[in-house]
């Protein structure tokens, strides 16, 4: 992936020099052309085409935005209810993610999703302790975190 990005940057700079206009617009045009060339030559360049990973990163960001807005609506609903019937508690979530980077990302995503807040990470990085607004539906919460976030993160990092 780094090799392909460097190649793409070289093509963009080359395009800038060839068209003799040193502006961001021509650099951008060159970059688009570089993406196109890399796409054509994808079978002769080592590693998978890096745009594929980029689309996955973008879809992760979109998922994040969606969850953020949903969780905000949830919290606002709770704030303005007359008697918020909440039953908070802390539950454990075993995770398959390994590296620090992945776990940080997962913890951040969990904190910004409806009704959950990461309190702590166990010392061996295998369990996340999560404070939930409603402890009764934790099974559903665990399943949704496992299905959506862990999968999305794994697709980006592996």
């Amino acid at each position, binding site marked *: 992936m780094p090799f392909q990005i460097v190649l793409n940057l070289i093509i963009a700079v080359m395009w800038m020099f060839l068209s003799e206009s040193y502006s961001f617009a021509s650099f951008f045009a060159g970059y688009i052309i570089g993406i196109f060339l890399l796409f054509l030559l994808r079978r002769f360049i080592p590693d998978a085409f890096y745009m594929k990973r980029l689309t996955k990163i973008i879809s992760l960001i979109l998922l*994040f935005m969606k969850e*953020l*807005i949903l*969780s*905000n609506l949830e*919290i*606002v609903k*709770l*704030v*303005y209810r007359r008697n*918020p019937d*909440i*039953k*908070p*508690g*802390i*539950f*454990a979530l075993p995770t398959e993610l390994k590296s620090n980077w992945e776990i940080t990302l997962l*913890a*951040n995503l969990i*904190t*910004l999703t409806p*009704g959950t*807040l*990461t*309190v*702590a990470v*166990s010392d061996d990085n295998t*369990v996340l*302790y999560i*404070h939930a*607004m409603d*402890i009764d539906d934790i099974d559903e919460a665990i399943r949704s975190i496992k299905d959506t976030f862990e999968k999305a993160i794994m697709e980006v990092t592996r």
Partner: protein
Amino acid sequence: MTWINIGMNIIVIFFLLTGTFFIFSTSIGLLRFPDIYTRLHASTKAATLGVAGILIGSFLFLYAEHGIVSGKLLLGIAFMLLTAPVSGHMISRAAHNSGVKPWGDKVEDEYEKVKNLKSE
């Protein structure tokens, strides 16, 4: 004043109003919720979207009115999204380590159990 200007103004006003509304809800939530963890729920989530909404509104305003693409505002949103959950996590962890119990009677607390096991 053309129709495009009016439409742009309406969009900017929409973003600013939703941002303000979410920040206002955050402060109400801070006052109403029972303990530190539930309050952190309110402050980490709603404040993030509130500030993001106001920043997007001012970004659109600067672009429509003065033709400035202000990268600072977009960076502000990105850093807000990165730092708010981390600070919420650190505050709640510090609270738990200094012995704050979650609100409610017979509350389920897996982290407390693990800590007790370790100290024995």
